[in-house]
């Protein structure tokens, strides 16, 4: 049975590795998504005692788009190293949801290296991943390419916002009493900070030029 169309929304489910090494790209994703007119959502922001997978699937269903970063294909460190299967697992959920409801959801795969996905997930052959080369500029540029919005600023302008977040990230962590960059409160306050900063910079820019 096909579900009725949901309200048009700009929500994006961001499926990324939650580790310290990915922090800069995480910030870049959140900054960039807001800059191209979208509202990012991450699994950690969902409250409730339901099983994590149920909460993630509910979030995917509530989002018009999803971005699945499959760049972390290395084994985790430590004596009991293991590959990271969470991102491909959640991509599978999004693909299934989209196949059943193509009008409700569109998904994107992102990688840091060209052609690697043909080895790591060859069933995805025939699709074009967005390649960010593991850089902040790469993430921002590819977001601009993937989500074409007439009002999207240049990558240089996006970088001004990114730099502002980076400089104030420690303060946002302190306000939340945590060192975890992926904590729900940190994510929400980073989103609001980006929103406020974007508005202020846009208002100021005309007087600078």
């Amino acid at each position, binding site marked *: 049975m096909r579900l009725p169309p949901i309200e*048009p929304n*700009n929500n994006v489910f961001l499926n990324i590795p939650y*580790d*310290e*090494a*990915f*922090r800069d*790209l995480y910030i870049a994703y959140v900054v960039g998504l*807001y800059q191209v*007119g*979208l*509202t990012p959502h991450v699994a950690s922001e969902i409250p409730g005692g339901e099983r994590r997978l149920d909460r993630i699937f509910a979030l995917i269903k509530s989002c018009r*788009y999803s971005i699945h970063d499959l*760049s*972390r294909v*290395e084994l*985790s*460190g430590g004596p009991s190293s293991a590959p990271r299967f969470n991102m491909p697992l959640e991509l599978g959920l999004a693909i299934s949801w*989209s*196949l059943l409801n193509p009008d409700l959801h*569109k*998904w*994107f*795969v992102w990688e840091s290296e060209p052609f690697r996905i*043909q*080895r790591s997930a*060859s*069933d*995805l*052959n*025939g699709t*074009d991943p967005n390649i960010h*080369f*593991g*850089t*902040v*500029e790469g993430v921002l540029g590819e977001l601009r*390419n*993937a*989500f*074409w*919005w007439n*009002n999207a600023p240049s990558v*240089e302008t996006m970088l*001004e916002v990114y*730099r*502002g977040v980076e*400089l*104030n990230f420690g303060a946002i962590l302190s*306000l939340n009493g945590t060192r975890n960059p992926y904590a729900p409160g940190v994510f*929400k306050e980073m989103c*609001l*900070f980006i*929103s*406020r*900063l*974007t508005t*202020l*910079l846009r208002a100021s820019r005309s007087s*600078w030029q």
Partner: protein
Amino acid sequence: MMCAFGTVGQPASDQPTMEYHGVMPKSVRLSTPRPSPEEMARRLRIPKRRQRELNVLAEEYVKRLRAEKDAGESVIGRKEKPTNASAAD
């Protein structure tokens, strides 16, 4: 021996037998407006006091950016290094 999908024994670098011809677009065109900071604060349920604290941080950064631009410096001129190294690095 081949399984139902024909992928057993198929090297990943070879032409796959189960290509995905799905709905993933390379890009989509957006037309809806970006939410305002006030709308974001409401959606995110951030208390007024914290909103003010974040606003002060944002205003201070804009002032700093302006001062650097006036001085002819670039706040974004630094070279980005790849940040996608393994967590084990």
